[in-house]
């Protein structure tokens, strides 16, 4: 019984992947075709000395007609990156991993200091203001989007 179900799940994924690829490829070929997901204002906080953790922020806009969802984030500059949210309960701040982040059509979402952020852990080398690092977002519909994040000073608030 599990065979056909498993098979159909796999084939659905395969069709989905191919569809995503075609959509992305198509968008790249037609240079003036509007992208559904637009990522702007990406920046990352400089790190202090050998401190291996920092945070990145960006604005993501869904110009498409369907909801999309950030499934994961990554950067070649560090061992790990995760979507996090700084949440305050009774004045106590905790960082929570955010499993996935939905963006409704027409919505634009800002990852900004003190709230949603991309937590960067295990930096391979210190980040200095003026550098840039690539940040990859994997979305359910739009697939992989890579942006260059500008490194800003440790004291930067935006």
């Amino acid at each position: 019984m599990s065979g056909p179900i498993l098979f159909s799940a796999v084939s659905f994924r395969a069709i989905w992947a191919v569809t995503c690829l075609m959509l992305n490829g198509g968008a790249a070929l037609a240079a003036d075709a509007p992208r559904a997901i637009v990522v702007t204002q990406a920046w990352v906080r400089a790190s202090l000395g050998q401190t291996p953790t920092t945070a990145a922020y960006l604005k993501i806009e869904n110009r498409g007609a369907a909801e999309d969802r950030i499934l994961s984030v990554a950067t070649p500059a560090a061992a790990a990156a995760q979507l996090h949210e700084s949440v305050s309960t009774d004045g106590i701040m905790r960082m929570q991993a955010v499993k996935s982040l939905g963006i409704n059509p027409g919505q634009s979402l800002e990852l900004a200091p003190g709230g949603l952020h991309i937590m960067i852990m295990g930096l391979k080398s210190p980040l200095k203001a003026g550098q840039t690092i690539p940040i990859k977002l994997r979305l359910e519909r739009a697939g992989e989007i890579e942006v260059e994040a500008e490194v800003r000073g440790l004291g930067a608030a935006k």
Partner: protein
Amino acid sequence: MSRTAKTFAAVLIVAVAVVAGVFLRHAVEEPLGVSVATAVKPFTLIDHNGRPVTDATFRGRALLLFFGFIRCPDVCPTSMSFAADLLNALGDSAGTLQIAFVTVDPERDTPEALRDYLANFDSRIAGLTGTPEQIAAVTKAFGVYYAKRALEGLDDYTMDHSTAFYLVSTNGQFHRAFALNDDSDEMIDELRAAISAASSPQKE
């Protein structure tokens, strides 16, 4: 649901929200076990120059404390850049205030590391560290919570911690706590007023 039941449910929800809101605001302004206008319990720490300091060191100036740690990637740098904005906004009267960043990660945050860290925001902000026991004592004096938490899949940890600013009057009495909100201009105004009240605590 009947109309009456709906109304009742709505009223109940609002009432719970209001009580929770009042409680939360209270919890932030007056942390657990710390009352306003009472003397802050004595503490001894080490500053960013490696010098010992106590609660008495700061008498005569309003003292604004923040508890955090250097590896904190989001909230601590955001709070310290607010602290730098506050000092700039105070202009000439910034001298009436001492802002201090107290580490809740004394194992990693040495005086030198604190000095380098705070220089990125404003060198007028003092960095305070100490033995784990000294940090436990000062956090207890302000009703500050902190706890280590392992970072999943990494040989590293982060800290959960209270992120309010705690204002101490010139005479060493606890004035009140402030939670950083989204409107930094509003917060600067509120703090400006509180700092001037905390600078003449006899009039309270």
